[in-house]
């Protein structure tokens, strides 16, 4: 009995102390920075979505460990979009209206394009870290939409010197039939024709396809010497495995965008060896900022950050600096701080172009090869931001 009373008294004391602490905290702390992460957790690009979540989780953890951003606690909340544009719209609206107005993490370009015109009406802000379609910062650009990852036009400019020195004359494209695949195919075709190549086919495949055999046969029939593959996540793995079985990978040159990434190469093993591709981020990049990031990541996860994790983390870096610069978490203020600003990132000091809200970043190209005893995409060519600055086609 007396024990219980004692416990009760202690409990009361703790409660009172907590109440005091909370009261004091509330008096001092600024409003938290709340980030909404609508991403694909169960669709074709679920693997990419999980990488996005992990990078956001890491960046939020790191920021809070360091006492927050601009004295603010950082919080995030994620919802599944299944990579479907209409779901993305619903989930994003929900996040913004629930008080998570800074949106980041959508995978498919169509998702980004679907929410872009709504951001002003919902009073949110969207930072693309994965969407490739040129339109997002091109003819569909919006005041409240920013992109820190490279767009397809920049990736196409990156492969241009490589394409010029290749001997293969006839090229075909195998791409997913969404805004990303269509845009990338267009950009590649223009670049290839500029480099004196002939396009012999553009094959568009619905996302989440299981049987690629008919498409592989079409590619073979087209007589292409080389193919540009625009498939990611589950599609990339299925296509690569079947292309190997049908002897396509061994008979022609294969290059791609978001095709042979850190994770797909891990899943594919030897099948992926020798495939060329755009590399938007690699943990092997030799800069002080990147090394610090990779070291911190390793202590937390005991693994290297993947390309999508790196790109998402870069987005978080840019966002945090915009909060510091503006001293605000209001989407309108963040937008002003982002537009035309310069940011310290794991890829160096980069500028967010004011005209179209595209971050001018360096880009990389390489091949899947042995590195430290394991297969992974290895950088063979680096393009500086100046070399891959896309033309402005946005009027805000």
């Amino acid at each position, binding site marked *: 009995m007396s024990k219980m009373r004692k416990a009760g008294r202690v409990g009361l004391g703790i409660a009172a102390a907590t109440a005091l602490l909370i009261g004091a905290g509330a008096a001092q702390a600024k409003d938290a920075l709340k980030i909404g992460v609508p991403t694909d957790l169960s669709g074709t690009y679920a693997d990419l979505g999980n990488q996005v979540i992990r990078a956001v989780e890491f960046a939020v953890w790191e920021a809070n460990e360091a006492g927050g951003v601009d004295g603010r606690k950082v919080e995030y909340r994620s*919802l599944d979009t299944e990579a479907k544009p209409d779901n993305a719209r619903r989930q994003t609206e929900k996040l913004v209206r629930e008080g998570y107005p800074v949106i980041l993490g959508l995978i498919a370009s169509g998702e980004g*394009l679907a929410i872009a015109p709504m951001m002003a009406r919902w009073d949110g802000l969207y930072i693309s870290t994965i969407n490739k379609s040129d339109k997002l910062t091109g003819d569909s650009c919006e005041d409240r939409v920013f992109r820190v990852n490279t767009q397809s036009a920049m990736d196409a400019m990156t492969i241009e010197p490589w394409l010029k020195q290749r001997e293969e004359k006839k090229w075909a494209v195998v791409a997913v039939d969404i805004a990303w695949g269509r845009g990338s195919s267009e950009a590649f075709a223009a670049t290839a024709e500029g480099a004196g190549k002939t396009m012999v086919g553009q094959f568009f495949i619905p996302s989440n396809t299981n049987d690629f055999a008919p498409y592989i046969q079409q590619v073979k029939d087209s007589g292409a010497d080389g193919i540009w593959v625009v498939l990611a996540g589950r599609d990339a793995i299925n296509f690569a495995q079947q292309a190997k079985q049908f002897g396509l990978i061994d008979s022609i040159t294969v290059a791609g965008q978001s095709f042979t990434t850190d994770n797909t190469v891990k899943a594919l093993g030897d099948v992926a060896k020798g495939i060329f591709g755009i590399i938007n981020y690699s943990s092997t990049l030799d800069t002080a900022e990147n090394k610090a990031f990779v070291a911190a990541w390793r202590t937390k996860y005991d693994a290297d950050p993947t390309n999508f994790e790196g790109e998402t983390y870069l987005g978080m870096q840019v966002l945090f600096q915009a909060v510091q610069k503006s001293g605000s978490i209001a989407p309108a203020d963040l937008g002003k701080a982002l537009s035309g600003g310069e940011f310290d990132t794991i890829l160096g000091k980069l500028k967010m172009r004011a005209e179209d809200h595209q971050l001018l970043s360096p880009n990389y190209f390489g091949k899947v090869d042995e590195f430290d005893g394991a297969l992974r995409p290895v950088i063979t060519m680096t393009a500086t931001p100046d070399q891959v600055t896309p033309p402005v086609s946005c009027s805000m």
Partner: protein
Amino acid sequence: MSGNPTSLTAPAGGRDSGPLSRNWRLLTAAAVAVAAGIAAPHVISSVLWISLLTQAVVDMIFATSVGLLVRQNGRISFGQAAFFGLGGYIFAVSIAREIATPELAIILAVVLPTLIAFLLGLIIARIPGVAHAMLTLAVGQAFYEVVFKWRELANGDDGMSVALPRTLFGFDSGMLQTPGSMLPIVWTILVMILVGFTLMARSPFGQLTEAIRENDERAQFIGYTTTLPRAVIYGASAFVAAVAGLLQTLYNGYISPDMFHWSLSGMALIMAIVGGPKIIWGPALGAFILFFFKDVAGDATEYWPALVGIMLIVVTLLLPEGFAGLAERTDVPLRRLRKGRAS
């Protein structure tokens, strides 16, 4: 439609009140419901909730269209999303491509799907059972494939944003995209549809369709043509689905091929079953329950489809007439009690 309907109009159950007072009661209930809908945005403080409710009501309208088909025709459709999608696409494509004025586009968006469904109904209505389900699935998916593959029409898989004109029928179109003003609009439309369907079910025509549903052959035997009434129900059901698709497009300002996909037809059917299609407002109730169940489950876990699946199993096993059936069952003893007290 033709013939002598008197043998079919006697109210089922032989309740104390005549059809006239029944209709008055219905209209009073409807007026109360509409008033509640208009008041709702002033009572609910969270914009998120008002927006979710608006989307839920659109789902409720769509589920009602599926329910009508089950209730009046005894037919299960796996292609109802075709008319939902058509409602949205006809409107959006017409104004984006400047084929029609926005007001005409709205009218076309509900009239064309109704007409298409009526004509299809003349054929499909003759086919019962599994073949019917497969045929509706095929028709629905045919539309889906067209909008999916035809990128020039509306960006294929990525969908298309629709910028509304500044005014529609003289009203500020911003009203349609603001949750606080859109909720009363969609709610009023839902109530009107439910009232309309209730009156239709009570009418000689409604009784006739139920007779056809129960026994097509016997209805023919007593001199009714059975295909035409069935086709009219297809048209009415498609009209409501198109209204739902149009309202969603107006509210979201966005269309995508998923509006046509069979999984959406399936979802609408699940809503109708959860709610109980035997009662006119059952599917709407099912849609409401499922919408918020999905929302809560989606917040709780990324494996939310499993929770929805479990719920469906539980409902079909324990509540074969859905939640509305449950409500109705608890209502009967209450009514008896009330009646006893009154006399």
